[in-house]
């Protein structure tokens, strides 16, 4: 399984280097190559996760290694899916390296054998995990789009169009794409949280247990809710929306990993070393 993992990481890294060369050289064939490699890596990754699912008979999200791998898979998948609708090719130069990094991190995290647990067998949990991860992947892409926006905005404002101006799409497009990612991500996050509550009700008999992960999830949710609200009411576009998307992503990452190191709770075991 390790060798499969190495192969997948190599594919993602190859795709990353193609995407970065595409960003620098702006040659069409590099993009085709990069996209192809990413798709190939994703297919292999899907196969690996399916194998793990079959092997353990449970979703492979038991420890930090598996959750990281699953998160990387979700991000790659959402990016590939979004490419069918949007012409934001350059976001791959953010996505592919991000996915590679997460997977490399996962590779070096020691794998512990999953404990046989009944907690993970409910359909609610499968739905909860899947939706949350896909939603978070969309929000991760929103953060990347926000970063691209800030770069392009800086290029235009500083009147120094030397490098970024030609390579990045228009501000309006980046802004609306980021917004789209946030709507999708926020919606899924909401559904994911609700399914989580329903599941908690079933397993522990109560919806809310002041688990740190629960608290931080809600904080993250509130940040995105505020962003969307402000956009609709006060027209928070452009720079501020981009910065908020990045802050939201930071909160998301903290909820995802940080909480488990600093605080304890019943989500703990999924991110255990």
């Amino acid at each position, binding site marked *: 399984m390790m060798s499969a993992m190495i192969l997948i990481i190599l594919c993602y890294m190859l795709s990353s280097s193609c995407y970065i060369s595409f960003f620098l050289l702006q040659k069409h064939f590099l993009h085709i190559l990069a996209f192809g490699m990413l798709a190939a890596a994703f297919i292999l990754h899907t196969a690996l996760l399916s194998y793990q699912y079959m092997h353990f008979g449970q979703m492979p999200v038991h420890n930090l290694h598996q959750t990281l791998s699953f998160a990387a898979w979700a991000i790659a998948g959402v990016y590939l899916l979004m490419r069918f609708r949007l012409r934001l090719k350059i976001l791959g130069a953010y996505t592919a390296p991000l996915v590679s990094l997460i997977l490399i991190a996962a590779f070096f995290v020691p794998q512990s054998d999953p404990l046989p647990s009944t907690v993970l067998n409910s359909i609610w949990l499968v739905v909860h995990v899947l939706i949350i991860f896909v939603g978070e992947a969309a929000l991760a892409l929103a953060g990347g789009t926000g970063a691209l926006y800030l770069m*392009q905005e800086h290029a*235009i*404002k500083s*009147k120094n*169009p*030397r490098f970024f*101006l*030609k390579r*990045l*799409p*228009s*501000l*309006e*497009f980046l802004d*609306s794409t980021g917004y789209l990612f946030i709507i999708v991500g926020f919606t899924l996050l909401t559904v994911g949280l609700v399914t989580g509550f329903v599941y908690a009700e079933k397993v522990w008999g109560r919806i809310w247990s002041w688990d740190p992960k629960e608290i931080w999830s809600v904080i993250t949710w509130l940040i995105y809710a505020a962003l969307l609200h402000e956009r609709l009411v*006060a*027209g*928070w*576009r*452009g*720079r*501020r929306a981009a910065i908020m998307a990045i802050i939201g992503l930071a909160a998301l990452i903290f909820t995802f990993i940080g909480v488990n190191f600093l605080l304890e709770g019943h989500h703990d075991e999924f991110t255990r070393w």
Partner: protein
Amino acid sequence: MNLPDGSRHFIKSQIVNIESLEIVLIGINHRSAPVELREKLNFSKTETEQALLIMQKEPSIHEVFMVSTCNRVEVLVSTDQPEAVKKLIAAYIAAWKNVPIERFMPAVYVYTGDKAVRHLFRVTASLDSMMLGEPQILGQVKEAYRQAVDTKTTGVILNRLLHKAFSVAKRVRSETGIGGHAVSISYAAIELAKKIFDSLENKSVLLVGAGEMAELAVEHLMRSRCTGRVLVANRTFSSGMKLADQFNGTPIRFEEIPETLEAIDILISSTGSPEYVVTRHHVKPVMRRRKNRPLFFIDIAVPRDIDPAINRIANAYVYDIDDLQGVISENIKSRQQESVLAERIVDEGVMRFRCWYKNLDVVPTIVALRNKLYNIAEAELYKTLHSMDISEAEQEALKKMTEAMVNKILHDPTMFLKNPGTHRNKSTYLDLARKLFRLDPENHH
């Protein structure tokens, strides 16, 4: 089996000193001649046609092509007397345009052979243009070529040469960034607008004041499918109205500018106003009401019309004339870098053309034709003799017969190609013969 060696050289030794046509280019351009001279030498369409017809009547000129733009006049001929033709054409143009020959001659450049080919390719690919990479020249050369074809003054050589020039130009355009990124103020402004707004559809423009560059920018905007409203504000309402009519727009009063800021997306300003027409205080409150939709100010006026502090407001962007100039000089630099690649494509084109042109000569064509027939005869003879049991003497007789047949078949075409008649264009027949017997590898076409 080998045919007697001597027979292979039989024809070669017979053909001596067949004069081939030389390609000659005579011209002036923006670098060789000042504008006072160039404007005198400009040929209109009808003048060009007359000139082509007159030049073609000259016995030493076989084919002729001419292109005249505001930056250049170029005459391209194929001739068997290059030296005489150079003087002839220069004198002819000077006389037609009433320019003293001693004033005209220093501005003229003359290229022959590969150098002429290269010059034409560089001109067509816009490498020789005043503004490197500008797209008009290709269209102008194409138009001139169409005229020469209609007037029937071009033949095999120049047709081939011009087509090659077009394909080189096309390659340069698609494979290098030489035509990429704006090098004029108004285009640069629109390119920037496209990096702020995703599409210019339904974007409204406010033109403040009048001025050639500002009006040009509005025209470019409308051509880039900027389909929103056009508003025009002028100090004198009546002249604003006239300008608004020109763009199918709405005139507004100068005092209305601050309140219009809410509805527009792009503001182009070029007034003679000594102080700012739009200040930060105008824009700041508007942005909230606009729900922060981006607002782009293009300030072409000197002294400036738009307060530069507006650029610090979120989602508002201000570019003044110096900023745009800065963008342009960046773009020119990158075009120059791309021209290195373009020159390489031109070199390749010149080499390919030379290869074709060299083969168009009589000797190589006849040799190629002979070789082809001999090779066929040789192969067939070998196959036949191989399966027959006959004596040495009989074999020899068959070889002799085959050889004689090939020679007899070749006799008339050879004589014809060497001398197709005094008033006929030799290169046409050479080209036809090469095509008929497929003497060139496929990729030459």
